[in-house]
């Protein structure tokens, strides 16, 4: 127990677009809920982790940093991290797990606050990013060609699956349809009605094969997960969810040089760090900022073979709440909102505790995978209820 890491508390602010509550206000709402959920008080928190940390150049993307949380909450911390170059969004939770396993902290607030919708609506307060002057770094290789958005980068991987492996738009559509169906059962989700295949097929394209429904939308929200050390569980009141394994592998740190997104090596390597096997999974919470990404995770994790992911989700029955492997049970980012990775860990904990209400999957689930990232970024968590 001493060298294990657990998720002991979860919290989330209101999830919406163009919210007027401040980014720190949303963050505090989520922190208070998570700390109370765990049965802790702020003076028991001795660590903070976030992804990517405050980004001054694009404040809507990440307006709150570790410093804001330490100062606002009056914390005395022994460990913290806010790392844009972490493996991916959920890498913040993986790093926190490593910290508590090492004895560096006992209870760590892990948070992700997004404010892109509100920031776009209030440019005087949140100056928009200048994307076309003095471009350096990795964006110079894509943005001059109009590929400003990860939609355009991810769409090319999806197009290759269509041409090479025969993926159809009807198959791809099951990601968004499944997300909408599950979100409609989730009172905290932004989407509250199902999406039909007919409506999907007639909606305008963004970057082929992605239509509007395949892309998450800017969201204002904060999500918090408390990671606790195994020898501190007597201080918490919830059913602890063990972080049984983590992974974050990368073969090429590039969106356009890599043959495969990092979901493939990361999914493969997750199983090197545990005695569980892919057949033990009761559900999957797979990053879906763009609809194709869960297909890469299904293949990367070995749930199906490379080039078979679209067949696995065909018709949507296998990944539905009552299917053999429920996926994105809270609605994912296409249904719940762009919580930027942290929503998948949150929802895995909800389901493993059996607190999913109308969307709770049956069969007393004990093992879930939560992932985040696209392109060169990938992080996976294996979460278990012992």
């Amino acid at each position: 127990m001493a060298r294990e890491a657990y998720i002991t508390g979860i919290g989330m602010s209101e999830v919406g677009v163009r919210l007027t509550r401040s980014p720190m206000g949303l963050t505090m709402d989520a922190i208070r809920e998570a700390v109370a959920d765990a049965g802790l008080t702020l003076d028991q928190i001795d660590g903070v982790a976030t992804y990517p940390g405050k980004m001054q150049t694009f404040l809507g993307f990440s307006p709150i940093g570790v410093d804001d949380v330490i100062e606002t909450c009056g914390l005395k911390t022994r460990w913290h991290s806010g790392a844009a170059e972490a493996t991916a969004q959920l890498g913040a939770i993986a790093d926190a797990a490593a910290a508590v396993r090492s004895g560096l902290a006992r209870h760590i607030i892990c948070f992700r606050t997004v404010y892109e919708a509100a920031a776009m609506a209030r440019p005087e307060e949140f100056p928009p990013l200048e994307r076309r002057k003095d471009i350096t770094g990795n964006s110079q290789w894509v943005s001059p060609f109009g590929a400003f958005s990860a939609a355009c980068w991810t769409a090319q991987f999806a197009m290759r699956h269509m041409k090479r492996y025969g993926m159809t738009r009807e198959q791809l559509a099951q990601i968004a349809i499944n997300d909408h169906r599950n979100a409609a059962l989730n009172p905290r989700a932004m989407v509250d009605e199902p999406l039909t295949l007919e409506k999907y097929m007639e909606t305008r394209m963004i970057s082929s094969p992605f239509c509007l429904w395949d892309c998450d939308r800017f969201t204002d929200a904060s999500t918090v997960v408390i990671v606790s050390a195994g020898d501190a569980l007597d201080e918490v009141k919830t059913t602890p969810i063990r972080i049984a394994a983590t992974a974050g592998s990368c073969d090429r740190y590039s969106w356009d040089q890599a043959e495969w997104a990092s979901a493939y090596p990361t999914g493969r390597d997750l199983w090197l760090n545990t005695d569980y096997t892919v057949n033990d999974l009761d559900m999957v919470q797979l990053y879906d900022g763009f609809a194709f990404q869960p297909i890469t995770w299904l293949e990367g994790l070995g749930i199906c073979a490379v080039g078979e992911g679209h067949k696995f989700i065909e018709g949507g029955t296998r990944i539905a709440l009552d299917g053999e492997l429920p996926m994105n049970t809270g609605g994912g980012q296409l249904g719940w909102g762009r919580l930027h990775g942290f929503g998948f860990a949150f929802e895995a904990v909800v389901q493993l505790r059996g607190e999913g209400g109308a969307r709770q999957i049956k069969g007393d689930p004990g093992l879930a995978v939560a992932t985040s990232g696209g392109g060169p970024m990938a992080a996976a968590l294996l979460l278990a209820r012992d």
Partner: protein
Amino acid sequence: MTWQRSRIRLDKDNRAFWTGGANGQLSICKCNDCGGFTHPPREFCRHCQSENVAAHAVAGTGVIDTYTVNYQKWAPDMEVPFVIARVRLDGAEDVCLTTNIINCPVDSVDIDDRVQVVFEEQDGIWYPLFERMV
């Protein structure tokens, strides 16, 4: 496309790539020791970590590895739709470029199409675009 492309800040590593088009050359960083290519260009060879790297003019032909037809106006002056593609270069193993496929209808582009470079100059930057070979 006539819209304003992102203006690159030139440095010692990327200058040859973004200005080689002035001489009609597509320049990719190559190692003079092991012969491997490094893209994006860097101070060190990514294969053998040699510092003996230099810009090397490649043929400027390649094949479409994958692509997308972009319909979204990410900037107000953008003319849509247009094709964004990943082109695998001939003679530069494992190097791909994100680029645009121009001078053809967007729905005529396909994976494995053979393409050749055409440069578009804006404000001293020579953007390598590609068109299909006939």
